[in-house]
């Protein structure tokens, strides 16, 4: 079983996101580690790209901070190596950075280096299944997962195409638009989950989840995991703005992570569904 599959195997998975290097290298290491203490099962670690078209203002600002503090693909891999966490890591970034790395002109060098640093999988929001062949191959060669997003608009043939390519987990986008914490929970979640119900990978729901209560409801709706980015990045942003010490921000992140993880656990306790077969 892959490390990501294991992370989903017993109970609902809490999958937080932070941008690596936001607002600076050292603090960011502490923040990611705090997420694990708060109960993270998988961590999505953003590698900042200058044109993050799938991101809302919160994560976009995080990316700007990280880039300004000197984050690069090379630094990112060092960051992953410097991290002291045991949970699987998913690299979330855009295709141009993957494509340009090393010799350039293809994803092979990037995936090799990522796997060596300890990355378990990738989410690449601007790479639809149609264009993903070369990256899929490189992932297979290095034992990495390639996670795809299914949007509320994804239907018919596109679902099939993604199903045949996805591994690790399927990222179920809870609402249209870009990333960003919302006060309410989209009513399209259940409908979206329905469409991937018979896929043999775990289903993790993201986009707009910001509270333990949301997390609970997402799991109750049938998800195997919850992905939370902006609500956590907000804490980093506020800390950076106010100049709070990193330990203070880290402990807030840990607290927020715990709230979200506990929400997910509550959602599962009333929810004794058999888990789908894992590969």
């Amino acid at each position: 079983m892959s490390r990501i599959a294991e992370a989903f195997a017993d109970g609902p998975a809490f999958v937080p996101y932070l941008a690596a290097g936001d607002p600076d290298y050292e603090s960011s290491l502490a923040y990611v580690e705090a997420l694990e203490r708060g109960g993270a099962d998988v961590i999505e670690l953003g590698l900042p790209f200058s044109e993050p078209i799938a991101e809302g203002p919160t994560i976009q600002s995080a990316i700007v901070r990280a880039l300004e503090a000197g984050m690069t693909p090379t630094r990112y891999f060092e960051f992953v190596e410097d991290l002291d966490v045991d949970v699987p890591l998913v690299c979330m970034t855009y295709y141009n950075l993957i494509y340009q790395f090393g010799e350039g002109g293809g994803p092979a060098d990037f995936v090799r280096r990522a796997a060596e640093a300890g990355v378990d999988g990738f989410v690449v929001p601007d790479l639809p299944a149609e264009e993903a062949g070369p990256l899929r191959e490189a992932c297979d060669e290095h034992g990495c997962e390639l996670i795809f997003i299914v949007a509320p608009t994804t239907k018919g043939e596109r679902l099939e195409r993604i199903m045949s390519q996805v591994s690790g987990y399927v990222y179920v986008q809870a609402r249209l638009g870009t990333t960003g914490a919302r006060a309410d929970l989209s009513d399209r979640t259940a409908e979206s989950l329905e469409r991937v119900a018979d896929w043999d990978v775990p289903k993790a729901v993201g986009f707009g989840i910001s509270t333990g209560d949301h997390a609970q409801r997402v799991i109750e709706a049938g998800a195997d995991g919850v992905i939370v980015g902006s609500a956590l990045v907000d804490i980093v942003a506020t800390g950076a703005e106010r100049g709070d010490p990193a330990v203070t921000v880290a402990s807030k992140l840990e607290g927020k992570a715990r709230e979200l993880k506990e929400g997910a656990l509550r959602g599962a306790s009333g929810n004794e569904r058999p888990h789908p077969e894992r590969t």
Partner: protein
Amino acid sequence: MSSDTGKFGEYGGQYVPEALMPAIEELEDAYERYVLDNEDGFMDDFRERLADFGGRPTPLQRADRLSERYDAEVYLKREDLLHGGAHKLNNALGQVLLAKYMGKERIIAETGAGQHGTATAMACAHLGMPCEVYMGRRDINRQRPNVFRMRLNGADVNPVTVGRGTLKEAISETMRDWAANVEDTHYVIGSVVGPHPFPAMVRDFQRVISEEAREQAREQAGRLPDSVVTCAGGGSNTMGVFAEFVDDADVALYAVEAGGSSLEVDEEAGVAPNSATLSTGTEGVLHGSRTRVLQDRDGQIMESHSVSAGLDYAGVGPELAALVDRDRVTAVTVDDDGALEGFHRLSQLEGIIPALESAHALGYVEDHHDDLGDVILVNVSGRGDKDLETVLEETHGRDIEGAPDIDTFETTGGFQ
């Protein structure tokens, strides 16, 4: 060209978030039916509106004094006379009309110089569609007349403050809006860039420039030109004026990029002091397609620069990039000073105030007319009214050949 696969050699493709893919497939289908197959008489409707509302055909004018200066026959394709003052209307009208045929209810667009935003706002007013335009804060400041024009036509202008506040940030922001509202909204992309089918579709809407120009050259010069020269930002007027000449092997095609202040790149700062993507860029993936882009060694997109907002973009159309790779199109550059000189020269010798974008093409002809043959066709992609404040500011304190004494304008307050 293979618009069916969306690839031009290695370039093109569809690199967009999953939420947008169904909309792009829907657009692909609409492009094939309405634009390529003229379903429901779409293309007839489009051409009729281009004539009645847009003022097509635009003239191909023999420029007598330039001809004398260069000892060649110089013809100007006058896209500056198109309604709105630039070639941008061809595409904007085509796309807004297409959106209407598709049953979309809302139009969004991005704009650099404001010409595309203006054209889109006009097309929307003409066709009764609500319109929102994203524009970088910096571009809003340097293209104020166009901001006002968009608002006069009923469009909302949304300032984009991230990054340097230019076209590339505005495109990213418009893609975000599209991702959130994709079900009822059409994104009118402003050039031959973005995911398939945009590059092919925008070219087909702009193709009318070369359809006319080719016929007009035959009639007026009695033959095809030896060379066609035009500016290239994203490449829409470029592909428009080249499209029908691509198969004419004897016609040389020149895409003139913005050389800005220098062709050297500041790697440290991640800034290219130019927008010369074809000439200095490398292959990458930006805003939905694989193409040439200005990027650093890691693949981060660089800030570009040009005195003309409409050329200030770090990417370029994938088809144009492929034509340059195939040596069918020659990519060249003219710097900010050369463009300013071209601006003043055309204003004084021909009584035509060109857009700063178009002035790049005129700058190239000045320096290289000896290599361009006996019949030279220059595309004047737009008029320069929008650029007057910029030209005043940029000419002041520089040694621009042929410029009027700019200081007198200031002391008499003539421009305020």
